[in-house]
């Protein structure tokens, strides 16, 4: 909007002339129309930024003109000119979408000021629309943008680090090899972080409920334990699980439940001491299933305890561990909420941490009906 276009619709030639004179100059482009029909035609053709409409005109009434302008382009800002300074008609016009009113007679300064405010309003309207559109676009395409703009080049860098490390294997001294390997580790954590972001922004966790099925907790625990093995082995940590016999199933999505548990187990491994144990227990408790993951690691301070599920909170890891993105437990909580479950944590500094997951059990009998029906 380099030179805002202002249209004045009024049947009094004197008013049109004085408007042209007051606003004329380099700041605005001003057009005039002597009646509603001509004014509306100009609106269609030129899409002005701001339109002044006289409420009392022969032919199409000012109110009608207002309504047609708003129907044609709701982003055009309208201001009514009220010949008889009755507040009623101005209020009525503003209820129908006019932004402001200008009582006749007016001084040049009054007119200039109101025009300036109207133009400013138009600028804000357009800016808001542009920002909203941008936000929608970002939301919609975030996955693709992140994946292409960040992930691909990082992936290529990593691939070349791998390749160079091999190509130069005869030439590199241990110190140089160590530096390359540290670069690989850093890029690896960056890629992991980007993958987690993608997961959060591109999948609607609440929608997993559409595909819920009776799911065995024993299978979830064993799949999650298996997934975490590589990290556990590196720290010589044993994962000991005890699952109550004949545990009822839960109504859920196995993939995301495994993910929820993997995040908790990963956390437990990260904050555990070398060569320790992590205990996973699953029991029935009333109408719920309770899964407890207990480590004997560094523990979490009381003041941090409430933050662990908030996202972007990352604790001080234990021995030989990598720092996390702090998003894993936030995702876990969202997954469990979608399952009508909950997750809580108790901890003692220096002694260890226990995470408890509670999920509603499928009542006995309901499961067989469900399976027979599918």
């Amino acid at each position: 909007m380099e030179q805002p276009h202002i249209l004045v619709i009024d049947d009094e030639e004197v008013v049109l002339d004085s408007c042209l004179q007051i606003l004329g100059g380099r700041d605005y482009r001003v057009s005039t129309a002597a009646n509603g029909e001509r004014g509306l035609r100009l609106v269609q053709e030129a899409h002005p930024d701001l339109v002044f409409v006289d409420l009392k005109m022969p032919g199409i009434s000012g109110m009608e003109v207002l309504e047609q302008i708003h129907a044609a382009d709701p982003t055009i800002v309208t201001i009514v000119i009220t010949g008889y300074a009755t507040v009623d008609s101005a209020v009525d016009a503003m209820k129908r979408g006019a932004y402001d009113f200008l009582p006749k007679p007016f001084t040049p300064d009054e007119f200039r000021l109101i025009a300036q405010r109207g133009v400013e309003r138009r600028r804000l309207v357009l800016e808001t629309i542009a920002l909203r559109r941008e936000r929608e676009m970002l939301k919609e395409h975030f996955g693709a943008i992140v994946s292409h703009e960040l992930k691909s080049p990082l992936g290529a860098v990593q691939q070349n680090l791998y390749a160079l490390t091999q190509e130069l294997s005869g030439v590199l001294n241990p110190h140089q090899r160590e530096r390359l390997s540290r670069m690989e580790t850093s890029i690896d954590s960056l890629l992991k972080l980007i993958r987690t972001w993608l997961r959060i922004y591109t999948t609607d966790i609440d929608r997993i409920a559409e595909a819920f099925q009776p799911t065995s907790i024993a299978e979830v625990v064993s799949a999650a334990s298996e997934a975490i093995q590589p990290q556990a082995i590196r720290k010589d940590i044993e994962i000991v699980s005890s699952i109550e016999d004949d545990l009822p199933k839960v109504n859920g999505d196995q993939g995301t439940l495994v993910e929820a548990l993997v995040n908790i187990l990963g956390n437990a491994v990260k904050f555990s001491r070398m060569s320790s144990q992590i205990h996973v227990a699953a029991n029935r408790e009333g109408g719920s299933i309770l899964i407890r993951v207990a480590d004997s690691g560094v523990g979490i301070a009381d003041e941090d305890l409430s933050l662990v599920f908030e996202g972007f909170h990352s604790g001080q890891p234990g021995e030989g561990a990598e720092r996390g993105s702090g998003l894993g437990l936030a995702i876990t909580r969202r997954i469990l909420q979608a399952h009508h479950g909950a997750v809580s944590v108790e901890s003692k500094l220096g002694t260890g941490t226990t995470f408890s997951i509670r999920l509603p059990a499928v009542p006995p009998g309901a499961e067989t009906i469900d399976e027979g029906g599918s």
Partner: protein
Amino acid sequence: MSTGKKLMMIDDDPDFVEGIRSILVGAGYEVDVAHNPKDGFKALQAGEYDLLLLDIMMGRGAEGVMVARKLRKDPKLRDMPVLIITGIREQIAFLFPGGAMHPHFMPVDELVEKPVAPQLLLERVSSLLEMAAKRKG
């Protein structure tokens, strides 16, 4: 130390290609490269290749999937082992709703995620070549 095996790689990211090719050449493979699906498919039809390394997201979308579909219809190329190297493991599930993470475009294929560690790359390539040799009998 040459394996005598000739591989084709279709991927539109020249930097990434170099990182893969160098590892394979170092292990004794001969590697030809095409930077778009069209050239790649032409080269596959014209030459004799033992394996294809295929990117999924190229050009305006999942053009790698088109390449796989064309290969499957081609009597000469339908048994070619394919190693899919992709940066979009998560999204693949959305492209093929209801399917597993690994879509199995081809009779003999494997999927690895970008970037791929040298050991894993070489392992997958040699096991795919072995599987293809067995199928031939």
